[in-house]
């Protein structure tokens, strides 16, 4: 594609954000987009469509499950829900990403390093 979208920061980031949102409450695709944009204060400008391949990957890995239903606003929606293994996966990811962020932060700001 000619249009290199600035969607993922690194592989797995979008999935992690989706799982995190779903942990708070089940949601359908549109609501997920809104939620992620709001929570990131619109810093993460994600193309709405890029959500769907990520959702399919999560579905395939059985980290989330989907069900057709009717929303509070009386719309026909496909609602996603995090599974038990999704929860476990999310926790692992978060802890490993936190370590990574720490590492990156140390490299970027060596003066803050407690060791030196």
């Amino acid at each position, binding site marked *: 594609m000619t249009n290199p979208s600035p969607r993922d920061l690194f592989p797995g980031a979008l999935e992690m954000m989706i799982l995190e949102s779903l942990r708070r409450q089940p949601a359908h695709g549109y609501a997920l987009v809104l939620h992620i944009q709001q929570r990131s204060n619109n810093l993460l400008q994600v193309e*709405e469509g890029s959500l769907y391949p990520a959702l399919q990957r999560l579905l395939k890995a059985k980290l989330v499950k989907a069900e057709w239903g009717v929303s509070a606003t009386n719309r026909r929606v496909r609602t996603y829900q995090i599974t038990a293994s999704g929860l476990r996966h999310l926790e692992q990811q978060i802890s490993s990403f936190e370590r990574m962020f720490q590492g990156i932060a140390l490299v970027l700001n060596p003066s803050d390093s407690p060791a030196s």
Partner: protein
Amino acid sequence: MNWMPAIFRRRKLYDDLSEEMRLHMEERIEQFEREGLSPIEARRQARIAFGNLALVQQRSREVWQWPTLESVLADLRLALRQLRRSPGFTLAAVLTLALAIGANAVVFSVMNTFVLRLLNVPRADSLYALQHANKASGHQSYLNYIDLRDRNRSFDGLIAYNVSGAGLDTGGNPTSSWIEEASGNYFDALGLHPYLGQFFHAADEHGPNSAPYIVLTYSYWHTRFQDDRSVVNRVVRVDGHPFTILGVAPPEFHGTLMFFNPDFFVPLVEDNLLNGDDMSARGSLALFETMGHLKPGVTPAQAEADLNSIGAYLQKTYPKEVGKMAFVLRRPNLYGDFLGRPVKAFMAGLMLLTTLILLAACANLGSLFAARAADRSREVALRLALGSSRSRILRGLFTEAIMISLAGGALGLLGSVVLLRALGAWQPFPGYPIHQAVDPDAMVYIVAVLLALVSGLLFGAVPVRQVMRVNPYEVVKAGTGRIAGQRTSARDVLLVVQIAICAVLVTSSLVAVRGLARSLHANFGFQVQNTMLASTDLSMAGYSGDRVPAMQKRMIQALQALPGVEAVGFADTLPLGTGLNDTIVFSDKTSDLRPSNATADAALLNVSPDYFRAAGTALLSGRSFTWTDDKNSPRVAIVNREFARKVLASGAAVGQNFKMKDGTRVQVVGITEDGKYNSLTEDPVPAMFLPILQSPSTSTQILVRSSRDPQILGPAVRSALHQLDPAVPLDIETRDKPMATLLFGPRMATVALGVLGAMGALLSITGIFGMAAYSVSKRLRELGIRIALGAQRREVLQTALGRAFKLLAIGSAAGLLLGILASRVLAYIVYQATPSDPLVLGGVVLAMALLGLVAAWIPAQQALSVNPLALLREE
């Protein structure tokens, strides 16, 4: 993996996805409209916000798809690159597999042709031959056949045939040819249609010699008549009698006995004219085999019950001529169990051994692959560290394995096709129309490809555990070389298995070779050396009645007059020859001469006075026959020791009497040594010799004993006989020639096992070499240090190769043990194949030790030539 549900489920997944994305757009558009955009603008903005709809859809769908063709191609390219980087390894692996799969393809093709495939006639699956329940034989008398044919309710026409020789004369050129004498319903019941002209039918038979017709086989029509379509209705002479050529059989049909290819078919009712058999004697088992198609819905068991009730009826009605008559149904291809059982046993054994070869090859390649994976552990670790998944790496390894196995399979198959072509064109028995094309069919190709794939998966799976265990961090930190620390690796086990298999093969082939060598020097009960054999059938030259013995006497006299000839004698059939007769006999005391009371079933040979001296059969007591033992003198016989033991009363055998089937009393005048009559492997068989003048026969097998060079003696015999009557067809050969026919089976078995043994030896060499070379190269540094510290050559070798030799010893011992067990199967085919033979045992041990030495030679040199200085500098 469930493919079908996956495909249906995927459709639903795609539908859900499209619907979901459509609803997403709808919701976004409504949102924009609520914010005050025009419907058109709202739609536009919603699209921009969503991104490329088609691309999103495609990416989402890809999640559910199989790895695409592209990624498979990428795997293939990578595997090719890896293999090209080590051409020696690739070549060795492909050749090893080509040998193993080629051997399997050849053996399977032969088994497919002889054992698995049915006769080439319509509805072959319902075609069964009648075999006597107590004996692997289908012989039957003509009258019994007629009763069986007309009284059974299970067969769509029961046919019968006989194999025979006849002289065919199309005008001044009599040649001896092979024929099938077939019942009138033969072609119709088999469901065949003529290629040219027509067949004979049941309606053509009106008693003895009423149907002087012949039907040519396609190949005989092709070679003898050059595809001449005008042969139909031509009159030719068969054994001097006029016969009309009715037609030509279809190309794919060559008789009802698998590898026997007759030249033409003659109605069975002509047998009396051609062979002089007495078709009206219920006790004379003149027919070779009977068979038929089962009626639809009739099971073989029902048909057997039906036939057995007819048998019981015949036995009750003709108690004098018919013994216990019970049948089992067998496939006709290999004459029921007679050839079928040994051939099946042999082929199954061979198939087992070639499977072992393939397994050994897989073990060999498995250890090569494991070694390769160990060498590549650094590369694997790096790829893992860079984010590749283990399954992706394993996929790469398996792709390499499968590529090697398919290349090896293709090469092996190619080689086997070439070999089989040669095998199909080969006529192992000169003078007999015995050959069989072994065409590999689709079945063979499928099996070969399957074998290749399975073996690829087998040896590809060996390094899996290794890859799964690789810890990228450890490997990258420590570098290579620290992995070879385990005590017993999978590779050691594989090597032991491989060597054991190879030792089995080496043991079997040595056992077979020894067995063959022994059977060549066994006591046959006659001397093969210094004997010429001139065989003919005087009926082919039109002799009959009293002219036959007169001519035979003249032939003997003519040959006795030749210089250097010590003895000349003849018989109607020879021991260990084709068409040997046997008959039941009764002890002198038996008065109720029904077959069930028979004392023994004895081989029967009608011989001339000087036969025993000419044949080299020792006469232990009594006298030989003379020319005065003719029809006018009392009936006499010479019997072997086994006959005397079984039939005669104890005490001096000479002078005692016994009774023939028809009640004739015969006096024993001499005793000969025991011999082999029907097969080399038989237990002692009672045999009796009758004077040829008391039971004349046109079949004449003349033995000429002389120490003269057969090259000179042969032509002399031929010209002497030719001067008597040029019309008599003659086959002249040394006595051991027809013996070669008999030893064909054991010889083939020995050749096959020899080849397999050689392959096994080759595989064990490559296996030991691979293992030794690898361990030496892994431990070069350690060896260098040992040498620097003053280790002796012996100690270096001990360190470098001790393990390889230990494994060799364990494997050989296990293989030897298994080989001895397997050899019991061999005893079936190879006469006197016994593994408990010090020469064989010693041979195996010596062979395996030699193989080990050969294989370890180069690695040993490498280990000894280690230069510690150079090595230490490198680090």
